[in-house]
């Protein structure tokens, strides 16, 4: 635990320093920018809500990547799985009769979102388990396939009125907003926390989680211990895709209430950052998602002070800093016993 905190402190301080240098280069005072970022995000209910809204999608995609990662699979297809979730959730939601009551509409749409994401990722897992196809290649390629299919379906069937938005979903399928100054944060936040708890429970409290982590550590050893590596790979990928697909609930059922091309674009990729930043632990992923959400929402709050490229760069700097600081702390502490005494 102490190791994690030290690494986090180093990473945050280093990112802060790099960000400050960049700000000085463009000629603004770092104190002013950071101060404005914090002040506008945390003193304004709406901005706080937008940060939580962004963090909700990021956390689900982060959990998706983290779950697969612990089983030794690098799912960089969360982007496509989320897009599949958006497509399924919004199409089904719009197809439901307008009078569908919430207790039916919400579970149906949630299942569609998770199911579509799970199906796409499950295919990747199946290819890996039966054909040895590398999951990085197949999942990133499926990102393009899903984006293409989704835009094609949009053009052929879904877009209405010359826009890139589809028909609205049944009102019963809309998730309630949480208030917070009229921001977009909605009940999907609760679903996300429940999902994180479920992942934690599976991971740390069940034999299935044990098997899945054993495969992640050493597939050969797991196999000789009698674990079906193939089964774990397919199941872990499916569960991972279902989590990524579930982010569609936040975007479609909680925010847009309709299909829109490109809804949540880039969130799947940022989910990889959230998983790596959070060290694949469910609680860590939530914290990382909040941090990335803060950078997004706060970046907007200072949009007049600094160019947008700077805030985009900062997200990358944070990930780099974490990637570098974790092994540094591990090595320093391995050397440290004499020093620390």
């Amino acid at each position, binding site marked *: 635990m102490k190791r994690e905190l030290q690494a986090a402190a180093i990473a945050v301080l280093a990112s802060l320093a790099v960000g400050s240098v960049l700000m000085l280069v463009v000629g603004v005072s770092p104190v*002013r920018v950071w101060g404005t970022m914090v002040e506008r995000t945390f003193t304004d209910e709406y901005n706080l809500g937008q940060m939580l809204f962004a963090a909700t999608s990021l956390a689900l995609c982060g959990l998706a990547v983290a779950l697969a990662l612990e089983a030794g699979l690098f799912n960089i297809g969360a982007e496509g799985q989320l897009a599949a979730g958006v497509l399924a959730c919004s199409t089904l939601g719009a197809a439901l009769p307008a009078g569908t009551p919430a207790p039916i509409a919400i579970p149906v749409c949630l299942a569609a979102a998770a199911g579509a994401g799970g199906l796409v990722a499950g295919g990747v897992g199946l290819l890996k388990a039966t054909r040895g196809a590398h999951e990085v290649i197949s999942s990133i390629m499926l990102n393009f396939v899903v*984006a293409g299919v989704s835009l094609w379906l949009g053009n052929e069937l879904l877009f209405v009125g010359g826009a890139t938005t589809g028909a609205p979903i049944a009102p019963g399928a809309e998730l309630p907003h949480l208030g917070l100054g009229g921001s977009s944060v909605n009940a999907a936040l609760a679903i996300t926390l429940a999902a994180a708890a479920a992942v934690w429970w599976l991971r740390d409290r069940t034999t299935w989680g044990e098997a899945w982590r054993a495969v992640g550590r050493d597939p050969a050893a797991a196999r000789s211990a009698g674990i079906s590596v193939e089964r774990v790979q397919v199941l872990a990928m499916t569960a991972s895709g279902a989590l990524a697909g579930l982010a569609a609930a936040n975007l479609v059922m909680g925010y847009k209430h309709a299909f829109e091309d490109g809804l949540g674009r880039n969130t799947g990729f940022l989910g990889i950052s959230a998983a790596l930043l959070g060290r694949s632990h469910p609680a860590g992923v939530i914290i990382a998602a909040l941090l990335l959400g803060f950078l997004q*929402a706060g970046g907007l709050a200072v*949009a*007049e002070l600094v160019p947008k490229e700077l805030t985009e760069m900062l997200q990358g700097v944070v990930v780099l800093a974490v990637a570098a600081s974790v092994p540094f702390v591990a090595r320093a502490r391995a050397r440290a016993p004499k020093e620390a005494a």
Partner: protein
Amino acid sequence: MSVRRLLILLVAINAALFAGGWLFVPAPAPKAGAGVRVGIVFDVGGKNDKSFNEQAYNGLRLAERELGVVGTFIEPTEGVPRETALRALAARTGDDKLDLVVGVGWVFSSDLERLAQLFPDVNFAGVDYAPSSGAGTLPNLVGLRFREHEGSFLVGAAAGLATHTKVVGFVGGMQIPLIKKFEVGYRAGVAHVCPDCRVLAAYAGSDPRAFSNPPLGQQLAGAMYDDDADIIYHASGKTGDGVFAAARRRGQRAIGVDSDQFAIAPCCVMTSMVKRVDLAIVDLVREVIAKKFRGGMRELGLAEQRVGFVADEHNRLLLPPAVVNKVRALSDEIIAGKIQVPWQ
């Protein structure tokens, strides 16, 4: 280095940077001016995209210079909910309060509707706005829609009249209804003057990056020129730079879009289909100043002189006067309602 030493070092560096900034960077002077205040939120491309975001930015600059308004803008990063940016501008109060908030790009449509209801005393406008189903007219929201198909019809006619091979091309950015409008109008224009001409069409992709992929634009255009096309019209943002590169390489002709793109490739840009987002924004600002701002849809086309084609002293050599005259005559016929240009 031990962890503790590194931490101390980092804290010291940060303190030095903060202090340096605090001491040596002057606080920016607040933008003074009694004029009307205008805020713009750009689409993903950002204000320097050499395409329609830049046109909108030019409009803001123009309004600042000529009408004395105070302008501000936000360029949201990809993945950020755009509504947040619009709302940040709309929610300003006191001396910072904005009189007009503009969202550039079709993606803002439903967000603008929500915010216009939430902030009834701020005026909103959407460029390329497409109303959501069921959203009525709001008194403080203007939707700007350009009849790009009319301008595209004219450059299509110009291409149909000027082609030697009877084959012309179209390169679109992302395949969405908005860009499809350009293609449909262009095809109709070609067919109107040259019924036996062929139109080759291709799109650069299925996400917004399709508007910023010059190498792909060059490839698509190259293939069309190889298939005997001698004029290619593009509606693909920065991807069009690749179309111009291919034209330059083969000594063929191309047609620009949104703004007059002659300067990018003087050898080859025969004409451009211009979409005057800048003037449309200045018009809106004038209305706000005169307190005549009224909500509703505005359709802007040839009749309003907000779309058109370029024929001036620069492209004289590429666009023969005979062609210009015929295209102008067609333009008059469209304005008079004698030609109905299809758009889907």
